[in-house]
């Protein structure tokens, strides 16, 4: 910790990428939730979440994804997770979220899925 960071970046065609660094636990999840809420308020519903620098996630972190994906999909968007580390992927598996969320190591394919191209 000491190093929890969230960065957002507008990619092409209405896709926004969120890069998280550090860990997503019951202390830090709210900042992630806030970031997503801000994007939703700006009508950004096509999100790629880059998890490559996330070392750890607990249910509080996973809960942000669960709480947000419905609204994203209702607005013609989605939330795609890219490059989770094995320990992070394991938590999605334990919660049965790997069937619900698209998880990929490839940013290009994530963008294609979101823009439908």
């Amino acid at each position: 910790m000491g190093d929890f960071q969230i960065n957002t970046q507008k990619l092409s065609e209405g896709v926004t990428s969120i890069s998280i660094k550090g860990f997503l636990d019951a202390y830090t999840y709210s900042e992630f939730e806030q970031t997503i809420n801000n994007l939703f308020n700006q009508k950004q519903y096509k999100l790629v979440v880059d998890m490559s620098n996330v070392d750890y996630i607990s249910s509080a972190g996973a809960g942000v994804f669960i709480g947000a994906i419905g609204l994203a999909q209702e607005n013609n968007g989605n939330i795609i997770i890219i490059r989770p580390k094995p320990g992070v992927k394991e938590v999605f598996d334990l919660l049965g979220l790997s069937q619900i969320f698209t998880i990929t190591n490839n940013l290009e394919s994530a963008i294609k899925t979101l823009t439908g191209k």
Partner: protein
Amino acid sequence: MGDDSRENTLRKQEPDKNKHHDRLTISSDLKLLYLVRQFVVNFMRQIALPADYENRIVLAVDEAVSNIIEHAYESKADGYIDIQITRDKKQISFSITDWGKPFNPNKVKKPDIAKSIKSGTKGGLGIFLMKQIMDEVKYTFKSGQNHLYLVKYLTL
């Protein structure tokens, strides 16, 4: 006196390689969860547990402690949480004590993730994960103390 007490300390504190027991009492602050995880990781590395146990067990304990802070202590940092880890031949067990609001686990429903996604709410995931990961999860409330007892059987 400095030298005398150091000599005593030496004998008392000498690490006992055969005793796998560790204890942390920490204030109830979500900011400190990373230290709790560090403590659990540290214990597991000392006993050389296979790495695939590590992530899950840390997660289960984190969920337990997060719940205590958020619910038993209502996110106030002025409570304490006592965490004891014991590694026996066949299992690793966690005895977690708090002095917050009593908790009745029977009130907790299983999470319905499909429904959570529809309603945009979430919750109930922590206890679900704890039960997924651990082989035993027991709560008791006695003389003002909540005790949570988590056990993972080791098949090494």
